[in-house]
């Protein structure tokens, strides 16, 4: 392979040896790989990561994890399930198990995860689950840079329904790299809602892949919030494998410092009469870098597809960067597909309007930023989660004001 297509990495022989498993022989994508053009991995690959310890001592859930009233709690520390920190009273219609990680081929990150993940946290959904299931993944590196490979598998059987919240956070300490993979299968007529919040430590790396399959008449609704980390990528690939399936994939990010956040989505319309919609919004401050890449693929057979996609980003200062690549790849003719993308700063007319009503500039900016992101946050259909995610954004704004500028 051309050198520009791979990035050499620290996850080979030595890494495998300390785990006592067979080494991963794959490559991380290089700077010339089209899907990674905006998110180079050279800084990640420079760090000598070792496998994160499974039995690290953690007594409490970090405060950055939002509290969701009445939710069941499943905690992973460094990718391993921690019964002592969990509240696994899940209620009816759902079962928890800890399965082997399938050694399936896929992207290099999925293969990396498969090589080193301890076990898969598997949820098998058979009925209408009442409780929200809150999965918390904690990275804890202690004294040396460490990597973790959390694995989550959700299987929602025919006509079942479940609401999941995922929080990805870290403990203070050395830098860590989280490489989570979630496989989600939405059965016929089933409904899965999944709300993911990534609020990693400032020095942390987070490269997540979600693989979602939605069967006929199935509904998948997801929201991906990105608030921190040195380098974060949330890659979501959804395949609509039955007719009349419906996907709503939304998200928001708010970045400062030198944070890099990448949202990459691929929606694969394979059969007729499916709909997909995406609304992503981001604000960037400091010297941060926001990336959105979204591809809608409509296969030859997927007639009557309705697919929409929107990304808007707002600059809060001079210094950040925005890269955006929304993509339509259409092979069926009787379709309605559209995308929109925009970048800019807060409209001075809006600021003046608020000033003319007596609102000071800082409050006005916060109100406008919250309003800007609200278009995406309001897509969250679960009211409690919407409030929690909205509050997390509010908190981000408060911290932003507190930062010396």
């Amino acid at each position, binding site marked *: 392979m051309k050198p520009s297509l791979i990035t050499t990495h620290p996850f080979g022989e030595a890494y495998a040896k300390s785990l006592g498993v067979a080494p991963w022989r794959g490559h991380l994508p290089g700077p010339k790989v089209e899907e990674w053009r905006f998110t180079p991995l050279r800084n990640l690959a420079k760090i000598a990561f070792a496998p994160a310890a499974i039995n690290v001592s953690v007594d409490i859930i970090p405060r950055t994890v939002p509290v969701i009233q009445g939710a069941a709690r499943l905690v992973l520390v460094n990718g391993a399930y921690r019964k002592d920190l969990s509240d696994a009273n899940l209620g009816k219609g759902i079962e928890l198990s800890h399965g082997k990680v399938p050694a399936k081929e896929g992207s290099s990150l999925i293969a990396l995860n498969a090589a080193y993940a301890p076990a898969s946290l598997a949820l098998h959904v058979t009925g209408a689950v009442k409780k929200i299931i809150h999965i918390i993944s904690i990275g804890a590196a202690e004294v040396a840079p460490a990597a973790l490979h959390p694995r989550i598998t959700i299987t929602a059987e025919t006509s079942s329904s479940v609401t999941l919240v995922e929080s990805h956070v870290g403990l203070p300490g050395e830098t860590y790299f989280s490489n989570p993979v979630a496989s989600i299968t939405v059965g016929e007529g089933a409904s899965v809602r999944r709300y993911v919040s990534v609020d990693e430590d400032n020095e942390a790396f987070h490269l997540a892949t979600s693989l979602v399959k939605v069967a006929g008449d199935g509904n998948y609704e997801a929201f991906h919030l990105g608030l921190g980390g040195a380098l974060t990528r949330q890659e979501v690939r959804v395949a609509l494998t039955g007719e009349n399936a419906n996907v709503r994939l939304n998200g928001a990010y708010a970045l400062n410092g030198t944070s890099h956040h990448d949202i990459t989505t691929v929606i694969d319309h394979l059969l007729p009469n499916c709909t997909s919609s995406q609304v992503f919004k981001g604000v960037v401050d400091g010297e941060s870098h926001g990336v959105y890449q979204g591809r809608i693929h409509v296969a030859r057979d997927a007639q009557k597809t309705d697919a929409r996609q929107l990304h808007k980003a707002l*600059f809060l200062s001079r210094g950040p960067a*925005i890269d955006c690549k929304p993509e339509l790849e259409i092979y069926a003719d009787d379709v309605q597909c559209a995308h929109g993308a925009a970048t800019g700063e807060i409209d001075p007319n809006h600021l003046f309007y608020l000033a003319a009503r007596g609102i000071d500039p800082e409050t006005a900016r916060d109100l406008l930023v919250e309003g800007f992101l609200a278009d995406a946050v309001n897509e969250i259909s679960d009211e409690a989660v919407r409030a929690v995610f909205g509050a997390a954004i509010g908190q981000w704004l408060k911290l932003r004001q507190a930062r010396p500028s």
Partner: protein
Amino acid sequence: MAATRETAAAVRDVEQYKYGFVTDIESDKAPKGLNEDIIRFISEKKNEPEWMLEWRLKAYRYWLTLSDEEPEWAKLHFPKIDYQASYYYAAPKREKLASLDEVDPKLLDTYKKLGIPLLEQQMLAGVAVDAVFDSVSVATTYKKKLEEMGVIFMPISEALHKHPELVKKHLGSVVPYSDNFYATLNCAVFTDGSFVYIPKGLRCPMELSTYFRINEKNTGQFERTLIIADEGSYVSYLEGCTAPQRDENQLHAAVVELIALDNAEIKYSTVQNWYPGDADGKGGIFNFVTKRGACRGKNSKIMWTQVETGSAITWKYPSCILQGDNSVGEFYSVAITNNRQQADTGTKMIHLGKGTRSKIISKGISAGRAENTYRGLVRIGAKADQARNYTQCDSLLIGDKCGAHTVPYIESRNPSAQTEHEATTSKISDDQLFYCLQRGMTQEEAVSLIVNGFCKEVLQTLPMEFAVEAQKLVGISLEGSVG
């Protein structure tokens, strides 16, 4: 029966591509293949100065290092090109014409068939034409009149002798020899093309036009166009292209460079109708073209309009580098692909100066088994305060065997800049079609009408003479795509 159907299809093909004839004319050809001797041969034929040859050789040597770098990112599929199997120089015999009267009558006849009369008395009012046949410019009309105004409009091979300082200063200044695989190849082997200089403050009163024709078999065409609009000047430039119907693919790798100084404006229009190959994808032109304009001066403006209906493969991204403060770049495009045609085309708008503005309007129509991709880059540099971009890309699919794709790249580094991108993909609505049919139109008339409406925003930016031609072309290109 089968034979009859085949004959009918062949007849229809000929009718569809009415420029598919071959002119039987004696020509000078360099030996097949590409090496330094061929480049020296081309340079010598043109009696070029030493620095020009050196530049060509530098490009050629660099090109050899690129063997691994032939662009692969476009959504295009074609067999690997054997660059040694092509002729890099072909010229109609009989050189150095003193006047148009000496042009081979067969050539004149060719251009007449193409609808491009070269004899001045038959000229379209107000359009000066430079005709490029295979590798060389064969005739330039209205020379005298333009000279009097200070406009330089001549083959670039001639400009190299008459205005070496202008050519040397600007050639390769927008598209450097190391730019990309095809442009580098062009630097090494380009044979002719048009050179235009518009003096300060002049609003060029006539449209300047180049007409490209590939005639020879197995010939690559590598022309190079350079247009310089000095301060406060204006020029509108038209370009048309056709090629005979041949079973093998022919390569066209042109480079166009535009330079607009302070307050200057260049309008560059193309109607590209190279032979697209037959319904099964046999033959046709590979059109790998690098077109780029630099808005060097403040308040300068470059506007690209393209109607791309021909070629088996189109790889083309006419771009604007907006360096001067408040400079403007515009790109209007209609790309129609039918049968087995493939197009990956769009633009790049590179915003560097303050207050720079760009607008992209792209209409893609895909029919038959064709693939049509819009690919565009909008880049806002850190210093491009208050820059603005607006992009609208619409795609239309006709039939369920084709593809339409939209791949915009938006990269912003400036908070006060605004970019806005919108794209849609749909088909011709059954309601619209039925309405037209109910009013007595044939299916093809209706499609032509609706598609023309879909493209109107782009077509209306073309100069009058071209607009009418382009509208007809839109209809013709889609023949056989419905029903």
